[in-house]
């Protein structure tokens, strides 16, 4: 599969939900497949909080795409039939404008001064991207977790520009528990002595330990208790592959390894920004989900997983019910999912079939 990577500049800037403004910005995108003549086969993929524009295929630097099991030639989202686009969201750290990019006004990296961005801002920036790519509408906008929130927001904000929305392992808003978990993660970053109140770039250090701890906590919430049990149980880590002598159990070694890897490339300010966006999203804008959804024209496919305790399936059902109350064509499907919250990333025959049939129906 051919991966096309582009850096797209938006000199017109973007006014943000917070009241702030980006005078100009960049989005890095990947695309797969070809836009057909009638421009009716475009699909937008929205990434979850730590994802990026590399959704599918193998890249020398970025490895295998985060949704490679679902997106590709003859897969559920078939790149031989559809023109599939994925961008790194604003505030990310994989190439789009974010805390690690240079602020033209000061000629220094934005750092902690990168403005607060929200799910609504992302969707607005993706709409600008759609216009720039000369795509009249998306046949489908899809994503899991925070990506599912963007798909929902797309259907609310641009009802005429989206035919179908795939909202997987997501909710209309983060729960109290979600916010609480994210705050522990942020606190571990802020309390890292190398954080320097977000100005660590000036000190040539990164708050690696804080990011690592945050990610370790994150991983626990992404997996199900059952999966952790079956995969690691109470097995001891063999001496030869211990990342650290303090490690006893395999699960400790796994979390240490994953956390360490992540801390090597993910930016701390981005982490804080992305989790803030996730916590802050509320499709009902604090008033009423049903009212917020009344203008949706897209068909909705909401998928939940029984093993997901971070965004339990019932949270997806709330979206379907609100949609049905508004006479929106909306379906709600639940699968067991072996991987907890992460289940949306993985192919299973039934999950892939449902996505494929939804796209093609």
């Amino acid at each position: 599969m051919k991966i096309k990577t582009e850096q797209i500049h938006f000199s017109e800037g973007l006014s943000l939900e917070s009241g702030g403004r980006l005078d100009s910005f960049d989005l890095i995108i990947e695309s797969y497949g070809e836009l057909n003549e009638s421009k009716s086969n475009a699909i937008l993929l929205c990434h979850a909080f730590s994802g990026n524009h590399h959704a599918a295929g193998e890249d020398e630097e970025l490895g295998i795409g985060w949704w490679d099991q679902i997106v590709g030639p003859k897969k559920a989202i078939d790149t031989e039939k559809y023109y599939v686009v994925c961008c790194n969201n604003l505030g990310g750290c994989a190439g789009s404008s974010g805390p690690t990019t240079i602020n033209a006004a000061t000629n220094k990296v934005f750092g902690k001064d990168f403005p607060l961005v929200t799910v609504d801002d992302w969707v607005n920036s993706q709409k600008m991207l759609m216009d720039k790519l000369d795509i009249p509408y998306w046949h489908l906008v899809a994503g899991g977790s925070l990506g599912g929130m963007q798909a929902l927001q797309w259907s609310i904000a641009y009802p005429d520009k989206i035919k179908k929305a795939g909202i997987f392992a997501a909710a209309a808003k983060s729960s109290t528990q979600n916010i609480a978990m994210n705050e522990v993660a942020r606190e571990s970053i802020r309390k890292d002595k190398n954080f320097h109140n977000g100005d660590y770039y000036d000190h040539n250090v990164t708050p690696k330990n804080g990011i690592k701890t945050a990610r370790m906590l994150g991983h626990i919430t992404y997996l199900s208790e059952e999966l952790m049990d079956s995969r690691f149980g109470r097995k001891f880590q063999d001496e030869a592959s211990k990342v650290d002598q303090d490690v006893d159990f395999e699960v400790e070694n796994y979390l240490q390894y994953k956390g360490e890897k992540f801390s090597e490339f993910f930016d701390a300010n981005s982490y804080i920004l992305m989790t803030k966006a996730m916590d802050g999203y509320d499709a009902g804008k604090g008033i009423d989900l049903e009212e917020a959804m009344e203008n949706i024209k897209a068909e909705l496919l909401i998928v939940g997983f029984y093993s997901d305790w971070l965004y339990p399936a019932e949270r997806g059902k709330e979206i379907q019910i609100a949609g049905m109350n508004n006479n929106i064509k909306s379906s709600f499907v639940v699968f067991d999912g072996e991987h907890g919250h992460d289940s949306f990333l993985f192919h299973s025959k039934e999950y892939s079939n449902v996505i494929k049939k939804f796209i093609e129906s």
Partner: protein
Amino acid sequence: MATKLSKIINHWVPENSKVIDFGCGDGSLLKELIETKNILGYGVEINNLKIEKCIEKGVPVIKQDIDKGMNEFKSSNFDLSIMARSIQCLKNPDLALNRMLELSKRCVVTLPNLGYWRCRINLASGKMPVTPELPSSWYETENIHLCTIKDFENLCKKENIKIKDKVFLNKDGSHGGLASIKPNLLAVEGVYLLEK
């Protein structure tokens, strides 16, 4: 779904109405109603393979165990709810019946008749009925609450449910004739339009 049964149900479904089909299976009935009556239809189904079929047909579907509740559908203002050949599989058919009439003005219920003469012959010979309409053995059937036409109508009476219309089906799926003369003995299936 036998086409004759769907024809009867079709007759009771108002144009452009909002319909929910509990135990919708592969979505064929809803698909037909979408095409012929321009309804807005939603199916409720527990089997993932059947759900996949609904999605393939473009029929909106909700994965839900009906036994675990139907309350969440109350706020959706349905004109009609349907439960075709499923009520006998539920833990609480009486509750389900009342719930359906809370969430929609009318409901259509169809059920196999355990009073059908073939079933009676089976029972008379000392065995649980196994007929073309009820093909499974007692230990593997999903039908845990089978009843006769008479039983069902008595339940409706007890629950103050009005029978607005009813049709009885013969073995070949046709209606009228023998089935309508002595339904409790001669009808294979009862099809009801109910109202509270």
